Structures are given as C-alpha cells and as structure tokens.
C-alpha cells in the first residue's frame, strides 16, 4: 500500500458516503412509500456484515470459535442483556473455545 493508494481508496470511500447522504438520503426522505427502507437497510446490511465476520474467511466459509461466540451473543441479545455484557461474553466464549 502506497500513499497514492491510500488517497485513491479514501476518495472512493468518501464519495460513496457523500453520495448516499446527499442523493440516496434525499430520495428516501421525499418518497413516503420508500421511507421504511431507512430502518430496513441497516437491519439487512448490518446482519450481512455480522454473517461475514462470523463465518467467512476471505471468500470461503469457515466454522470456528467465532460461531460459538456469536451464538452466545445471539442468546444474550434475545434476552435483552446489556450491550457490554453481549460484547464481553462473545469475546470470552470465543477465547475459551480457542483454549480448548
């Protein structure tokens, strides 16, 4: 990675965020029929990120200690446990599985 690559990557990321904010955001706010997408997009996209971080290794699927950690997190989220409890329990469960 060079300084030029950092600049190009940063420009692309900045552009997408600004485009989303100024173009996509205004379209959603003016179209009542599409308004619910404002809450549905994070549900879909963030869950996809969770899946990717839990079970992917590059472009392959890999079931390892992270899955146990996330199962613990899932149960705690379901039981409405505090945020910090979910995060710490997931890390501890994952670390313990790796110790075994």
């Amino acid at each position, binding site marked *: 990675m060079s300084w030029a690559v950092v600049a190009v990557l940063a420009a692309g990321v900045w552009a997408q965020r600004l485009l989303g904010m100024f173009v996509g955001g205004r379209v959603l706010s003016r179209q009542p029929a599409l308004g619910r997408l404002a809450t549905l997009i994070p549900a879909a996209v963030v*869950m996809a990120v969770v899946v990717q971080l839990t079970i992917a290794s590059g472009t392959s699927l890999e079931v390892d200690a992270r899955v146990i950690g996330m199962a613990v997190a899932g149960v705690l989220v379901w039981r409405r446990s505090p945020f910090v409890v979910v995060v710490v329990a997931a*890390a501890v469960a994952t670390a313990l599985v790796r110790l075994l």
Partner: protein
Amino acid sequence: MVLADSMLMGETTATGDHSVAGPGWGDLGALCLTFFALGVTVNVLVLDRVGSESLTIVAAVAINSATTELAYLAVRDAGGTQLAAVIAGWVVASRFGLLAVSLGARLDVGRWHRAAAGLQSFDPNVTWAIQQRRAADVVRVFWRATAAMHLGWLSGIAVGVFLGNVIGDAERFGLDAVFPAALLAIIGNLLRRRSGALAAAVGGGLCLLLIPVAPAGIPIIASLAGAIVALATTPPEETT
C-alpha cells in the same frame, strides 16, 4: 424532515412506538471498547503488511474504513493487481454508502452538517441514530456514538501500531468476536419487528450463500435485497 419522522412513526402500533431510548453511557463505553479492539486488531495486521507506522496511521484515519483496508490487502496478498485491489476496497465500503442513505433520510440539518455526518456513517452510529423518533435525538445519538467510536478507534490505532508486537495474537483473546457481537446487539431492536427480522434473515442468508461464489464485497451489497423484500412484503402497521 417531519415526513421522515412520520414514516418512522408508520412502523408504530397501537401498543406503542418502536423508537428506542438512545444508548446510555455504559453502552457508549462498550462501543468505545469495541472500536478499541477493532483498532488494535486491524492495525496490527495492516502494519505487518505495509511496514510503515506513518502510512498505517494515515491510512486508518483517511480511509476511515477498516474493511476497505483489509479487502485491498487481501487482494494484493492473493496476487491481484493494484486496480483489482482498489476496486475490492471500494466495493466493500459500499455498505457505508447504504447506511448514509438511511441516515440521510432522517437527518434534518444543514448541508455541511450533512456532509460531516455522511463521512462518519458507520454501522453502530447510524443504526442507533435511525431508531430514534425525534429528529433532534437522531442527531444527538449519532454524534455521541460517533465520538465513542472514534475515541476507541484512534486509541486502538495507536496501541496496534506502537504496541502490537507486545500484544501478539489478538484473536487469542477473542477480540475478533467483539465487533460482530456489538453489531448484533445494536440491531437487536430492529430484529424484534417482523419487517426488520425479515430484512435481516434475507440479507444475512443471501450473504451466506454468496460468500463462497462472489467477489469480496458483493455479498454485502446483495444483502440490500433483504430490505427491499421486507419493504414489499410487510405492512407498515405491523406488530412485533
């Protein structure tokens, strides 16, 4: 932005609105720790590949997307060209554009404020913010979460770059599970609605199916279909 507020209210029921209380100080502290862990683990990896402390720090701050850095390095490690690696980095960052769309629909602020918020669109701060009913609360929750994230991220960069060799393998401590667990907790309230659960199930399922067959970043973009399916198949006046 009254329209946007009423649209969110459209998801409410006779049993009460679905707007949730903003994150408390304990939640913000945990978010800060989450981004600290992320900052340490990512920047230890990046420094290992890049070899320059200054470039690692500038990349982390300027690109402002750990997944973009990791995607670029993964393609280069696999023998890909500079162009292919840059495109992969941009594609995986597309989710921030999508999150900025959501935030943009709920923000009632001036142009420069919108630009600043757009550039700081991440999963936790946007997801927490858009669950607020009042426009003023959207702004307040967004910037509080953003501050907590950056405090953790920036200190994580410093520790990862300058003390990374002391820490060793961060995965030993389960730190790689911290970020996905935090994200799951943050969308927890959205998952309690039928529409949110459907969006997440379809989006997450599509991502799972596409990971082995699609280039990096595409599974995340495809997850947008989950939101569209949920929009088309669930009524606005749904119950949880």
